[in-house]
């Protein structure tokens, strides 16, 4: 038996992943255990969990793979400072103490932490992979393709910000790279900053805001900020940005170009200007990835595409790549951000370092991304009882019946079943569910349950076999990483007045039979639910379909704004008691809010720092 532990840590989204004889056994992000969003610390709890899931201890692990190379990153920093000098002195003064005290000695730090679990830990077991190779490995090795082009795009790793690799069998080689400071991820983050959202977590909001605006500034961005070539390669004009040397993402010249200052988070209202800016950067991002994928398909003649890296979480762009038909099939790693690097690093050791063959699994090597903790019915009951919860334990059939009925009655249902998801999306393991036919569901969930901005859209979970009847998509999207339109015949004809509406006013208009998940441009971030990867969630949607004729549910992550998705039964109960979720279903236990002890209600809204 060969055991490989993958670790990503110390930058953002720490995580651990475990391979046993090449099979992905467990993977989880540290934030879920520490309850600190995007936790970047050493993932002690995630490592504990993945080892316990396999019933192993650290001394039984053969290799440990860290997802990037700190020395290479340090080299990039030094060279950047030299290149921009004398600018960047302030950033240099802030960055170097961190490096000289901690990050340069990352290997020693890892060894010290690992020796807490295994006193005899042999430092030779520790290997370091390149950041983008880890992303590429996480995208290619678990994919259902024998051969594929692998595209990774993110903010920055060591030097690379974009890479193109070709994978065949167990071979994976990076062939092209775009280097820092030219980065599509950082361009998107610059606009995230400019529109007043938090860099590295607010990018989803920019994507969600984009359909409310018009891409009025697309040409200006293409003309001034980014020199985009026909093959999708690009360079950014650094005179508009400040991230390479300063303490902000953009500078005065950037603000002057668009005519407004940087929006102050949470204090200045979002206006049509910000929506147009969001629409413009989204359009530019799509233009870049579409040019890249078109040119790669032509150059290599390989029909499959795998993707990872933070930009691959831009599901609107992913949907457009699919519809452009440059590639026959696309597979995106569900943990496309840095957390997935832990998995990629482990997979690189197995296939590249140890040369183990790769068996292509057409059903799903990622096991639906349900790779986190599982709670038995007995543990669930014990934990709920210890929280003071009032619940009833029923049979699975009864649980499905009651949950589906609550959904059909328009209630918000907390749904906690099976193993927790790995990656940023809730896929029916730790989800809040609702009826997509309800006209008020989107507003209710945003304002009373999630405590987040009213403009943010919700995603649908749909039975795989019914997806083509409700959406233009006719394929798999098990990880909610593809956006497509609601089927034409399900849409509602707009009146002339409704068509004239601008920006956020569009939000209140019913657009289809399933308004809660139909965004203002009729798009939806689709999750197809498959019987073989999540039978219980599949059965619930089926039950809902029997009652209502609709095989779709609203699926949003089980958390509030700024909180990591719930991991344990206790987390779920706390979130349930702190929000307007009306029914909580945990395993075969059912909890009604009205039945709970009102003394257990806590002020949850203020508990987490806004993201």
């Amino acid at each position, binding site marked *: 038996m060969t055991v490989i532990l993958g670790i990503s840590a110390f930058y953002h989204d720490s995580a651990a992943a475990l391979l046993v004889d090449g099979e992905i056994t467990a993977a989880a992000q540290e934030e879920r255990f520490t309850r600190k969003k995007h936790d970047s610390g050493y993932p002690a709890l995630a490592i504990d969990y993945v080892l316990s899931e396999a019933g192993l201890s650290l001394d039984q692990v053969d290799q440990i793979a860290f997802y990037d190379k700190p020395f290479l990153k340090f080299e990039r920093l030094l060279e950047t400072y030299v290149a921009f000098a004398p600018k960047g002195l302030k950033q240099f003064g802030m960055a170097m103490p961190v490096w000289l005290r901690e990050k340069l000695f990352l290997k020693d730090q890892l060894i010290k932490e690992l020796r807490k679990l295994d006193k005899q830990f042999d430092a030779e077991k520790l290997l370091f992979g390149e950041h983008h190779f880890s992303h590429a490995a996480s995208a290619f090795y678990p994919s259902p393709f024998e051969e594929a082009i692998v595209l990774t795009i993110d903010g920055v790793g060591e030097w690379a910000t974009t890479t193109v690799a070709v994978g065949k069998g167990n071979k994976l080689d990076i062939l092209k790279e775009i280097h820092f400071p030219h980065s599509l991820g950082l361009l998107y983050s610059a606009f995230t*900053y400019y529109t007043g959202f938090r860099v590295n977590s607010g990018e989803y909001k920019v994507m969600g805001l984009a359909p409310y605006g018009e891409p009025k500034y697309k040409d200006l961005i293409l003309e001034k900020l980014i020199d985009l070539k026909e093959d999708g390669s690009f360079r950014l004009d650094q005179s508009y940005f400040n991230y390479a040397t300063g303490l902000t993402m953009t500078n005065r010249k950037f603000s002057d170009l668009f005519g407004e200052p940087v929006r102050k988070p949470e204090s200045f209202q979002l206006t049509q200007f910000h929506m147009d800016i969001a629409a413009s950067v989204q359009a530019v991002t799509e233009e870049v990835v579409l040019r890249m994928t078109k040119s790669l398909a032509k150059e290599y003649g390989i029909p499959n595409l795998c993707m990872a890296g933070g930009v691959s979480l831009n599901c609107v762009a992913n949907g457009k790549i699919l519809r452009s038909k440059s590639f026959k099939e696309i597979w995106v790693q569900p943990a496309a951000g840095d957390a997935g690097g832990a998995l990629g690093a482990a997979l690189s050791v197995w296939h590249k370092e140890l040369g183990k063959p790769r068996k292509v699994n057409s059903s799903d090597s990622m096991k639906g991304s349900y790779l986190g903790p599982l709670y038995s019915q007995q543990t669930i009951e014990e934990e709920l009882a210890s929280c003071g919860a009032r619940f009833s334990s029923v049979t699975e059939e009864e649980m499905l019946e009651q949950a589906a009925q609550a959904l059909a009655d328009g209630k918000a249902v907390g749904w906690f079943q099976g193993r927790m998801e790995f990656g940023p999306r809730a896929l029916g393991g730790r989800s809040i569910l609702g009826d997509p036919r309800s006209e008020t569901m989107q507003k209710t969930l945003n304002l009373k349950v999630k405590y987040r901005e009213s403009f943010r859209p919700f995603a649908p979970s749909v039975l795989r076999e019914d997806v083509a009847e409700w959406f233009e998509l006719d394929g798999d999207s098990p990880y909610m990483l593809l956006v497509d339109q609601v089927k034409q015949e399900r849409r509602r004809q707009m009146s002339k007045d409704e068509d004239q509406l601008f920006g956020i006013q569009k939000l209140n208009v019913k657009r289809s039979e399933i308004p809660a998940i139909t965004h203002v441009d009729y798009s939806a971030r689709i999750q197809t639910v498959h019987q073989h990867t999540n039978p219980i969630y599949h059965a619930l949607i089926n039950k809902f379909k029997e009652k209502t004729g609709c095989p779709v549910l609203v699926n949003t992550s089980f958390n509030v704004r700024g909180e990591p998705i719930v991991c344990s039964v206790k987390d779920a109960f706390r979130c349930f008691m702190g929000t307007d979720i009306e029914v909580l279903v945990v395993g075969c236990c059912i909890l009604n809010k009205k039945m709970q002890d009102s003394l257990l209600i806590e002020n949850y809204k203020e508990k987490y720092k806004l993201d």
Partner: protein
Amino acid sequence: MSFVKELWKFICVRKKFWLLPIILMMALFGALIVLSQGSAIAPFIYTIF
């Protein structure tokens, strides 16, 4: 000591000998900075370093 060896190996593999004087200077100044500061956690907007 193993850290210095590894850093030297890295510089050899990458053929970035010109970085050596910078690293040496930084080690000197770094020692000063480290000695004069309580915490080295930088509240930075984006962790590109």
